[in-house]
């Protein structure tokens, strides 16, 4: 719960932690489930795993390879009929 989470941060306020949790929930990194009056927060690892597991690296080379392929096609035949 937000209060328990805030207690682990020496200098954070409860409202500050709640705001932070709301942002993390909007980003899909954290899930919240209601239990009575309390919200129980848990981590959703999928979004972070996708970033961590290197898919971004495959995008980087794909993008450069795509641009190189475009240039090759265009410069090989400067005029199309």
């Amino acid at each position, binding site marked *: 719960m937000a209060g328990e989470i805030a207690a682990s941060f020496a200098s954070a306020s409860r409202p500050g932690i709640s705001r932070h949790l709301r*942002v*993390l929930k*909007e*980003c*899909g*990194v954290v899930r919240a489930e209601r239990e009575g009056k309390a919200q129980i927060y848990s981590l959703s690892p*999928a*979004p*972070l795993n*996708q*970033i*961590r*597991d290197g*898919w*971004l*690296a*495959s*995008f*980087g*080379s*794909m*993008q*450069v*390879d*795509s*641009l*190189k*392929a*475009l*240039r*090759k*096609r*265009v*410069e090989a035949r*400067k*005029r*199309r009929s």
Partner: protein
Amino acid sequence: MGLVIGLLNVRRSILIQATSERVWEEFESFERIGAWLGRGHTLHVFEPRRGGEVDMSVEIDGERRHYGGPVLIYEREREVSFESNWEPPHAWPVPTLWTIRLTPLYDATLVELFHHGFERLGAAAADNLQGYEDGWDVKHLKALRSIVER
């Protein structure tokens, strides 16, 4: 006016020795775009018009995962922009964005490819995006250009 490129973006660019009119020809149909876009990934759908659909896929951990979204901008000889999100259950809460921009430069055309909108994904994205950038060695590109343009 084109799409605004946000703070957290990846930019790749290339200079092509041809007019933007000529370069744009390679954007005008699915067949032509498929011949160059998505090397290493697979382009399944690209409808070259505003509101058209883009669907690509890549293999991650032995699983084929699709991503894409609607075309937001399709401006002749200037820009193509589309939303990019993973298909459920891997979807982000908000999509990222791709923008490909053509700018005439002397007798050539500068083609820039931006993958952007990552700032919408929160603090973790900022950290990991730096890893994405650091992983690419620009010397690679320069070496290749010197071979191709010899």
